[in-house]
């Protein structure tokens, strides 16, 4: 059941070295809190690797990135991938459909999910992708292992005092990530007495562990060059 707590406390309580964390919905402030705390050897699961994933990779927090797409030209991602700096990075890359199916299976409490995979691409094989035969039609469909992150770190618009969380934009994979994860931290921009009557998408408080109030996302990202990133990271960590 959700409790409302300061972001730094929530991150300290939920994220340990070596954890598998899902990052969805662009939780800018939570990523900043992770950089401050600096856990290591994380497995980072995110449908789309953008600036936040790049920062965590640049800070050396991430050992393995599980993803389905990335902003082109992420500088820290490139360095980690090509030069192993600051730490070597393993990648586990999927189509969005496959990673969505991994989340969906985890959310349903099932060991695997199925999809009509997009055959013919050059994506490397992973031991999380296999096939199953339909016991009714004999068709073979793609099977993917459920993902069950230790922690899902999500961002949404608002919560009520009980910790029911409301998403106002496109829900993306937030609902599935919350259910698939063993623990869930949601950052929100406001905490209200009562959620508006038309509920949009709601995560009930019992699928959320921590809610932390943060300001709206600001865009003071780091500079692209390595030295500049290092100085930015030092400032973040002060």
């Amino acid at each position, binding site marked *: 059941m959700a409790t409302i707590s300061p972001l730094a406390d929530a991150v300290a309580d939920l994220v340990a070295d070596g954890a598998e964390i899902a990052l969805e919905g662009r939780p800018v402030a939570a990523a900043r809190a992770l950089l401050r705390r600096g856990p290591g050897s994380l497995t980072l699961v995110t449908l789309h690797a953008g600036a936040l994933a790049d920062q965590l990779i640049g800070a050396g927090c991430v050992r393995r990135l599980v*993803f389905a797409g990335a902003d082109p030209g992420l500088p820290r991602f490139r360095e980690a991938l090509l030069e192993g700096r600051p730490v070597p990075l393993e990648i586990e890359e*999927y189509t*969005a*459909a496959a990673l969505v199916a991994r989340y969906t299976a985890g959310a349903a409490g099932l060991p695997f999910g199925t999809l009509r995979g997009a055959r013919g691409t050059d994506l490397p094989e992973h031991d999380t992708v296999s096939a199953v035969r339909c016991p009714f039609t004999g068709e073979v469909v793609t099977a993917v292992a459920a993902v069950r992150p230790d922690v899902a770190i999500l961002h949404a618009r608002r919560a009520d005092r009980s910790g029911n969380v409301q998403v106002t934009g496109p829900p993306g994979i937030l*609902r599935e990530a919350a259910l698939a994860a063993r623990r869930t931290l949601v950052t929100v921009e406001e905490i209200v007495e009562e959620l508006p009557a038309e509920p949009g998408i709601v995560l009930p408080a019992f699928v959320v562990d921590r809610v932390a109030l943060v300001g709206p996302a600001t865009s003071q990202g780091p500079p692209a060059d390595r030295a500049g990133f290092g100085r930015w990271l030092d400032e973040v960590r002060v």
Partner: protein
Amino acid sequence: MSALLTVAAARLLRSDQVCLALPGLPLAAARLARATHAPGLTIVEADGRVDGVLAGLAELHAWLQTGRVDVGVLTAAQVDLLGNLGDTVLGEYDDPTARLAGAGLSAAVAAHARETVVVLPHRLHSFVDRVDFVTAVGFGTGPVDRAALGLPGGGPLAVVTDLGVLRPDPATAELVLTDLHPGVTVEQVRAETGWELEVAEDPVTTAEITAAEHEASRSSA
């Protein structure tokens, strides 16, 4: 000329279609179509947004897998002779010279949409004989490959660039130059294409941008 890229792509979309458009040039083309000749076009965005509909990503994949997406508009860093899209790496996957966007939705859209329209600027580094990494399948290795792979969609209808339009030859599935934008020569296109580009017998010259298209481009930009 770059404006003609989105305009010419937009003209391929029809008012009765459900169109899944990736961000950037594809979405610009879809919006332009709806603002001009295709007011009924349904635009599904990559985040599951459809006008007021906010679908989750699982639902968006259900729409694709049940054949409800008529046309996908895609882009990529590379396209090859057989309409395959490369957008994962340049060079080797394990030792790339550049790291690109990855599959995301493209692979599923390329597999399931009834047809696809590919939009990208026509540059030699992008129009390659064989993409470095097949991120999304066009016609694979030839005209029967999609069927062999069990891909339900029809594959690329056209590749639209800032120089012209390429369409697959029905017999070989190889991309052929069928349309030239006004003022563009075949030699110009060949110079920007990394394979021996075939040209249709009587290439069409793209109609000039209309006043309405011009207006819609400006206001949606």
